């Protein structure tokens, strides 16, 4: 029965991924990513990884959708120039069709699938991974740590260094977001307050780092082309 659920969830996952490729509405893509996260959590449960499923559930349902929507509130939810599909032959305009990426992906995928011939079967107890350190964790954890949840004991005690590093990475990510988003509105050299919105820093265009840090002397925007304000854009 577990196998059936596993199969079905994986099939749904593949379908959702294809839908994410095909949609041209970013909002729909974000919604599909929400479904994707739910499916992933279900799969983790089927594969006995309750702790991981828990994390995925909390992150997927609580945080990522909200973050994505907050971004979409800035950038608009439409992909401006929808890319032609491979099968879309009728288009008159010369649009770059994504043939080269498709070839790259197909070749890489074929090589990887060829490589799975040597992989041990899913769920086989004789897999090499089950014979190295995991048995020791499972046997000794009760005597050495005394915590029934082996994942917790490995996470916090046996691999405490690792977790320390991960916590630092999470902290660093917060610092990065603060640096990127805390550059508040400033007066440019003409005394006009402006958001970065319409100002392309054309004088300093080559100096990417100064631009990133928000330290650039922002100059007047180039005269905006008519129709550029149109968020949805007519391709």
């Amino acid at each position, binding site marked *: 029965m577990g196998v059936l659920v596993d199969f079905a969830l994986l099939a749904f996952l593949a379908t959702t991924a294809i839908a994410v490729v095909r949609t041209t509405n970013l909002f729909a893509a974000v919604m599909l990513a929400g479904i994707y996260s739910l499916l992933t959590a279900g799969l983790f449960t089927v594969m006995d990884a309750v702790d991981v499923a828990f994390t995925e559930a909390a992150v997927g349902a609580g945080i990522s959708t909200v973050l994505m929507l907050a971004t979409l509130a800035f950038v608009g939810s439409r992909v401006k120039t929808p890319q032609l599909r491979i099968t879309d032959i009728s288009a008159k305009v010369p649009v770059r069709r994504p043939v080269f990426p498709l070839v790259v992906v197909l070749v890489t995928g074929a090589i990887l699938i060829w490589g799975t011939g040597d992989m041990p079967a899913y769920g086989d107890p004789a897999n090499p991974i089950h014979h190295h350190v995991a048995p020791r964790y499972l046997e000794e954890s009760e005597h050495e740590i005394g915590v029934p949840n082996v994942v917790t004991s490995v996470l916090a005690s046996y691999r405490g260094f690792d977790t320390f590093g991960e916590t630092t990475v*999470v902290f660093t990510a917060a610092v990065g977001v603060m640096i990127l*988003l805390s550059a508040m509105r400033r007066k440019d050299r003409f005394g006009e307050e402006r958001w970065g919105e319409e100002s392309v820093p054309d004088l300093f265009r080559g100096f990417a780092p100064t631009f990133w840090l928000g330290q650039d002397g922002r100059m007047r925007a180039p005269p905006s082309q008519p129709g550029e304000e149109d968020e949805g854009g007519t391709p």
Partner: protein
Amino acid sequence: MSDQIILRVATKIIVPTILLYALYVQFHGDYGPGGGFQAGVIFSAAFILYALVFGLRRTHRVLPTWVVRGCASAGVLLYGGVGLASMVMGGAFLDYGVLAHDPKHGQHYGILLVELGVMITVFGVMVTIFYFFAARGREDL
């Protein structure tokens, strides 16, 4: 536009529940699924829900930015501090066995503190990220 009362009442009921549940996940994590990472995310999700319904300004009053930033760094400090403490008490870095007379108890204390540090950091980081994303472009907040 004053008929959002359903959402407001529902939020008022469900936010404390989520907070309580996050604490359960944190402190029951030794016996069931859960731990610092999950609890931190759930804890921050409660505040995000509050901010969605009651607005960012009011959330800032409940949970000021400096508190959140402090949390983000305090957790890492707590984690590192546990490691340093175990070094001071004669063990290796993050060797919790020396924290109490009985190594097993020491492990318990160590895991508890470390998970607490993880939870505080993750909570702080997630709420900080949300604050910065939500407040971007609105100077009145």
